[in-house]
């Protein structure tokens, strides 16, 4: 009866009710754990959102799910009822301007299903992958460590004609490989193609797709000999999106240096591929060596290197920051890069965040308690402290022009047991893979020639205590930076943030009592 009472909103026309202009309410959310939501991206811009929720049991092991698609302003565009087995979870969605692709995961049935729909919600095609192993699913989480912003996308729009998908598979106990699958919008077999780890490869390979257009894709391949090997070897591939052909592959280990890759994109404005990351002594491994600095390289489509630049910590960056030859900041810790952005005037900005190790009082206490009981807590005695954000400004030839520091309140991250002994590079991978950095995402406002990087943090104000905030560092399009902070204090049962159309952030709040999710779009000031 209580459910009915919340449902009955009999419109006895007695009194006016007000609805906030900017809030969208998604009703009938019975159990938040059975809801998945995400954003839909096209050409690096948020075009909308999806909400997938379970609404009814329709047969013995079959449930009716409601798929709602909203536009970038949270106007409801399409609602579809889809029948799926119990425990189906909408893990990811993509939109290419003409069609949607959805990836459904069902852990209990061990299936992954891809489905495509057109803009009216009419189903176009589907493919079912069965007998998926749990470890296959876990591999997807590892992709986050190597992708640009750790948001783990595995589906990428290819122009308006199709999608490129990363598929990971375990091969035996400790070997895994990847496939890149292309599907047209209707998933017809005749137009699909697949490329991936060569059958005779003795290496374990991980792909990270850094950019995809209608014609080309840049893929960073990470290879190692075994699952326990810490020797990661990177290579940059440029793929032809017509047929998956590798137009060129450039290894990142040469006679000069060993290099990790943090960024690899085809820039259509200059018709070149830019690769950037940390560089190490040629004898050092990228996972446990100390980085010597940052490198930037440009290639044409044939793979010919046309430009390169190395910014060493001790000779170049030290002019702007107090940093030693191994990249250690004077105040302690290291800087990891999250994102690179190229602006209209050809300048390049790299966004980073400082982190350092410290003793974790909580971790020590937990371990003492656990030891007293004869066990372990699973938590390390060390923690990571996240400090300021950094923006490195370079000219079009990658000459370092400036380093700007943006303060934010420190935050602590408890590490899993054993992680404390990892190198700074590996620690950064772990933090990124789990999404533990404060850094959230970077977005471009192409129209205004602006970009902004965001992070989640807290703010302590007199008389107001500590409140969660959404921080923004914005390049204003005229050479300067501004900051904005949005208060995220909420009375909702749960609250989370998602990217929104340029100039906005979307704030989602779940209200258990009202059984609804409210979404509001907050403008960002820059």
């Amino acid at each position, binding site marked *: *009866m209580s*459910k*009915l009472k919340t*449902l*009955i909103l*009999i*419109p*006895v*026309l*007695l*009194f*006016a009710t007000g609805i*906030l*202009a*900017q*809030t969208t309410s998604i009703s*009938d959310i019975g159990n938040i754990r059975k809801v998945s939501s995400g954003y839909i991206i*096209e050409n690096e811009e948020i*075009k*909308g959102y999806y909400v997938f929720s379970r*609404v*009814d*049991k*329709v*047969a013995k092991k079959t449930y*009716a799910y*409601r798929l709602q*698609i909203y*536009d970038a*302003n*949270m*106007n*409801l*565009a*399409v*609602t*579809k*009822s889809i029948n799926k087995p119990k425990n189906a979870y909408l893990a990811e969605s993509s*939109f290419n*301007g003409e069609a949607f692709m959805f990836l459904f995961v069902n852990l209990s049935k061990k299936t992954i299903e891809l489905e495509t729909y057109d*803009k*009216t*919600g009419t189903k176009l095609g589907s493919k079912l992958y069965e007998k998926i192993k749990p470890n296959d699913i876990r591999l997807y989480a590892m992709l986050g460590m190597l992708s640009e912003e750790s948001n783990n996308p595995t589906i990428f729009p290819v122009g308006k004609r199709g999608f490129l998908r990363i598929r990971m598979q375990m091969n035996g106990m400790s070997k895994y490989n990847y496939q890149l699958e292309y599907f047209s919008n209707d998933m017809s077999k005749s137009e699909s193609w697949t490329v991936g780890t060569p059958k005779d490869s003795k290496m374990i390979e991980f792909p990270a797709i850094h950019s995809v257009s209608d014609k080309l894709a840049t893929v960073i391949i990470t290879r190692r000999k075994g699952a326990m090997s810490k020797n990661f070897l990177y290579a940059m591939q440029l793929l032809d999106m017509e047929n998956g052909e590798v137009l060129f592959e450039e290894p990142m280990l040469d006679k000069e240096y060993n290099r990790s890759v943090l960024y690899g994109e085809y820039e259509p404005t200059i018709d070149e591929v830019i690769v950037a990351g940390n560089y190490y002594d040629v004898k050092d491994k990228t996972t446990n060596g100390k980085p010597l600095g940052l490198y930037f390289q440009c290639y044409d489509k044939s793979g010919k290197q046309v430009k390169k630049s190395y910014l060493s910590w001790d000779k170049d960056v030290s002019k702007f920051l107090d940093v030693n030859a191994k990249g250690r900041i004077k105040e302690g810790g290291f800087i990891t890069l999250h994102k690179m952005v190229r602006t209209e005037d050809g300048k390049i900005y790299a966004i980073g965040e400082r982190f350092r190790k410290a003793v974790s009082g909580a971790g020590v206490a937990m371990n003492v308690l656990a030891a007293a009981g004869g066990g372990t807590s699973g938590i390390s005695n060390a923690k990571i402290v996240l400090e300021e954000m950094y923006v490195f400004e370079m000219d079009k030839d990658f000459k370092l022009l400036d380093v700007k520091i943006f303060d934010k309140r420190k935050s602590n991250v408890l590490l899993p047991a054993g992680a404390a002994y990892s190198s700074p590079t590996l620690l950064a991978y772990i933090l990124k893979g789990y999404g533990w950095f404060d850094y959230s995402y970077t977005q471009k406002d192409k*129209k*205004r020639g602006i970009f902004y990087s965001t992070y989640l943090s807290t703010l302590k104000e007199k008389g107001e205590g500590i409140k969660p905030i959404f921080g923004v560092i914005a390049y204003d399009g005229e050479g300067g930076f501004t900051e904005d902070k*949005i*208060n995220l204090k909420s009375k909702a049962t749960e609250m989370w943030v998602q990217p929104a159309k340029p*100039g906005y952030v979307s704030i989602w709040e779940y209200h258990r009592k009202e059984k609804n999710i409210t979404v*509001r*779009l*907050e*403008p960002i*000031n*820059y």
Partner: protein
Amino acid sequence: MMSRFALCIIFLIPLHSLAQLQYNYFPKENKASPAHLQNEIRSRWQSDMEAVSFPGKVKKEVEKLLTERYESLADRLDEEEFLFDDVIFPFYQSIIQKIFQANPSLPKEELRFLISKSRFPNASCLGEGTIIINLGLINRLEAEGQLAFAICHEIAHYTGDHVNEKIFDYAHAVNSKAFKQEIRNIRRQEYFQNKRLMDLLKDLSYDTYRHSRFYESDADSLGLQYFLKTSYDPNEAVRCMAILDRVDEPKYPQNIDFEKHFKNLSYPYKDWWDDYDLENDFFYSKDHIYDWDNDSLKTHPLCSDRIAALSQQLSQLNFEEQESGENLYNKFSELCDFKLIHTAYNGGSFGQSLFQSLLLLDKYPENTYLQAMVGNSLLRLHDSKKDHRLGEVLDMTGPKNKENYDRFLHFVRELRLKDLAGLAYAFLEKGTNKAKDDQFYLYSLILASYTSKHIEEGKAYKERYLNTFPDGIFTEEIIETDFTIDNN
């Protein structure tokens, strides 16, 4: 005719000022709601509660709804939602007096009539004696007789006790044995529980709305009988309905020419502010699962059906054609245009105040108040955006908006903080000297100067204001405020 002449006399002075709308508008502070109103509605609620004589749970349900009704109205009074001015409200009261004079059997002592400042063209009867006409409705009608018919229609809802019957029907329905049994049946179902629940809710709602449509037809018919006893032209009833039929279309549907207002100012205009694209990547489906049948949700019968029914009733009568008094009424309607802007601004709907001001500038390009309101609204939007409250004062774009409003929203949302401040200053700064001799205009220009960091200009305008208006409305504020504090 006598009463119409008297109307002219009574409103001679304000009508004269209405003629000046071409150049300016002088909003006056709304008077507080009369103190006796809260006591009246409370007293009525108490007597309604004592009169409830249903058994058990039905009684509880009815009492709950009556209490919600009372509390809602009390809140609205507290929040000063209602208009008590020197022009519109007395005009409204004069029409009500005419209706009561023509219908002496109406329960005059039980009724109270209010004007809501809402811009939505609507009217409502709350069922406990309060009848509310929205300013938005007065604004859209074209003759006094049409307003009189709308009032008669709402009075008929009261005398027919329609609202209370709806409450009682609903309370009985949700507490009936059949309904409870249906709930139990649904809970026992293993499959499609949610769908069955929604279907039950729909049936209940559709039934309620069906009764609503019957009551509306009844109110049309009974209301017409009250109306016909007055001296208004009977055809105004049909004309009123015809206006309501098209009331979804905006009164001013033209697109705003942003370049006309904001290009060629001292602040650079960006062409892409106005690059509104009607095409959208998404297809907006009209069908959604669990969707409600729109026709079944209509609270009113189709206007065309209502017009036909009223015309049928009128055709059985003999009456003389009368003057509609349109020209006189139009002045009040025009005044409402300005009051709605003022109300929107005071209510914090700065998006609406800016939108309506820009639209009205097409009609009154020299009106100083409208120009000042454009600048002021831009500044308030700037402040709201700075405080991350823009969504509270400005709607989002979307397919449900009328095109000209959606274009406007798109334009404003393209503006950054410094654009809002810069445009406000540049727009006001280009005004004539005559405009700058207006208090509100000059005050707005002072605010805009400081917000857009034109500090020296702001100081000069401040000095001008204090010299010109030593006892002005904003003098104290201008003296006491350090305008540089929030604008560093």
